[in-house]
């Protein structure tokens, strides 16, 4: 019984060393320090079509919330400036009220990574992602990365005593609702748009 125990412990220890050795040869920046990405909603986390058009009638025309309109969903992303981030948006096809649905015809997003001082200022420099794209990769702070027109140096891996520089980028979510069906029930239609941010690998 004692002999068996010794063998198994030896085997497990060997496996552990092997795994560490292999992993040490591959640096995946997507896994590094991703915990320092902070997403914050600025306008109570809403893409609100009523802020563009107060009265939305059943049977009414589509409602377009454009980048510069009221009602745009606004978020900030705080993260390391020496790495790119990838933003992925996952939007529902409809806004729902019980068994009633209104098509969320188009959901778009834009980002601003020019160190804007406010969300209003950020909108003016925002880059709109073309229709149909649900993901984009960009640096948090474009002003740092493009200073000399040269590629940025590779990011510094985290280590004791090192604190990476961080910056803030803005995200804007907007789109088109409807056309609202003529038989749509009156009330509040809602849907959840998921936004995922990670360091680009």
């Amino acid at each position, binding site marked *: *019984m004692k002999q*068996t*125990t010794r063998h*198994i*412990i030896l085997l*497990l*220890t060997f*496996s*552990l060393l092997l*795994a560490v050795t292999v992993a040490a040869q591959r640096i995946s920046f*997507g*896994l590094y320090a*991703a*915990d320092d*990405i*902070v*997403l914050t*909603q600025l306008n109570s*986390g*809403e*893409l*609100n*079509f*009523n802020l563009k*058009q*107060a*009265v*939305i*009638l*059943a*049977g*009414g025309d589509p*409602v377009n919330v454009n980048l510069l309109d009221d009602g745009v*969903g606004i*978020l900030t992303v705080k993260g390391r400036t020496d790495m790119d981030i990838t933003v992925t948006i996952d*939007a*529902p096809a409809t*806004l729902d*009220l019980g068994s009633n649905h*209104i098509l*969320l015809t188009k*959901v778009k997003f834009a980002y601003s990574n020019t160190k804007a001082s406010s969300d209003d200022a950020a909108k003016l420099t925002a880059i709109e992602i073309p229709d149909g794209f649900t993901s984009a990769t960009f640096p948090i702070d474009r002003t740092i990365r493009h200073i000399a027109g040269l590629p940025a140096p590779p990011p510094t891996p985290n280590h004791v005593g090192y604190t990476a520089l961080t910056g803030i980028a803005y995200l804007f*979510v907007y*789109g088109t*609702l409807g056309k*609202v069906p003529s038989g*749509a029930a*009156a*009330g*509040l*239609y*809602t*849907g*959840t*748009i*998921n*936004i*995922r*941010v*990670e360091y680009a690998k």
Partner: protein
Amino acid sequence: MNVLKPIQYLFFILLAFPFLTMMAQNKTSVSITAQATVIDNSGIELVTIKNMDIDVGMAIDGKIYVSAKRDASAAMMMLKGKANAKFRVTFPPMVKIANSTGTGTLTLYYEMYGYQSDNQGASEPIDAVERNLQISSDSKYYFWVGGRVDTNNARPGNYNGEFTLQIEYI
């Protein structure tokens, strides 16, 4: 063997822990709500309660003024729509009224007042340019229409015209 089991678990936990931790920190996500409040398409109904009556006998030096705020002869209309909804109203500042029995026209310069209840005296002026107003909680809004007309150059006859009021929700 009883001694081995805890050691086995410990090793597996030690192996798995760093990877699980990294996986948990790999992505940051957040949700936002997309929303829209839809109201019934009951439309807007405009009911003419009373026409404006211009009597030449009211003319002073050939000029007639019907006060939308004070005169009983002012036209009155009632709007029915969605309670508390905001709306925009536009109307032409003047209209040429043709003589239905002969030649000549009259030019009438409109004056319009409005209020959320049937209270002409409390009504407020509404400019001819786009103006944002709000329907009352009982789904109504009232308009009174008056105006100014100069009859000095008018020829005898009957003059009939229409007042076009454009209303849209905002």
